[in-house]
């Protein structure tokens, strides 16, 4: 068991690497899969020291729901931001900083949350507080910073908390 852990420090990463290699080659032939397996074995083994913990997923199926919500929000975000850019004068926009207190504690979950915030409506995640308890987000147009904070917490953070913790 211990040996298996040494050889496969990140089994999910290994599986992902095989899949990515097949996609890169645009084929699922035996050659490709075998070479993908070799890469899936070597890369996690060589980089294990930089990533000692395994992220634990409590409810992996929730990822599907999360992805659907995020992709939908990205489409809406694009239209909203395009409207703001094309039809609003700069002076009528109110760009603002918002601090989002985090309940998430795992580094992987916070990374996913920060990435999601950057891809969705008029928000870019800019910084984390020194102890990792608050996320600093910049909004393109936020008159009411509290509602932005509450929306991010209920829409993304709650789901990530269910997935990761």
């Amino acid at each position, binding site marked *: 068991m211990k040996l298996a852990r040494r050889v496969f420090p990140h089994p999910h990463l290994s599986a992902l690497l095989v899949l990515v290699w097949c996609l890169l080659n645009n084929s699922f032939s035996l050659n490709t899969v075998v070479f993908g397996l070799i890469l899936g074995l070597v890369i996690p083994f060589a980089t294990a020291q930089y990533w000692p913990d395994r992220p634990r997923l409590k409810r992996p199926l929730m990822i599907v729901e999360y992805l659907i919500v995020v992709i939908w929000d990205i489409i809406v975000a694009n239209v909203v*931001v395009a409207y703001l*850019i094309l039809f609003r004068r700069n002076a009528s926009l109110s760009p603002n900083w918002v601090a989002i207190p985090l309940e998430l504690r795992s580094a992987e979950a916070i990374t996913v949350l920060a990435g999601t915030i950057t891809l969705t409506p008029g928000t870019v*995640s800019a910084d984390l*507080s020194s*102890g*990792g308890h*608050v996320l600093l987000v910049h909004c393109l147009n936020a008159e009411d910073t509290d509602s932005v904070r509450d929306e991010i917490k209920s829409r993304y953070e709650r789901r990530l908390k269910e997935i990761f913790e």
Partner: protein
Amino acid sequence: MGDLFEITVAIFLIIAGVFGFVGSFGLIKLSDPMSRLHAPTKATTLGVGGVLIASMIHALLVERQLSVHELLITIFLFLTAPITAHFIAKAYIHRHCTDADLPDPGPDPRWAGLTEEDEAETGSDAHQA
């Protein structure tokens, strides 16, 4: 039938072009650096996404081949766009912001991009300039 496929591909390409244009236009039009960051991180996602969807439809329906390269480009784009934006935002905070500009960091003493040493550093940089 062939015409219908080509029209679908064309529609996706037009959507992609419009959003790509809006993203680049926003970069010029918006006034401060942090607002400018919003335009390329978002409008370009759908801009590139539209081209990729068009490419997949074209491969599947016109060339009769399943092409999955495009999915990978989407994934890489979704991974790299936030990281680039985060780097630029962090550099901006590091160079131009003080504690007074940013909201209260709650239970922690300060924002990570804004340590006391950094403030001293930016001070000396300004002096040199």
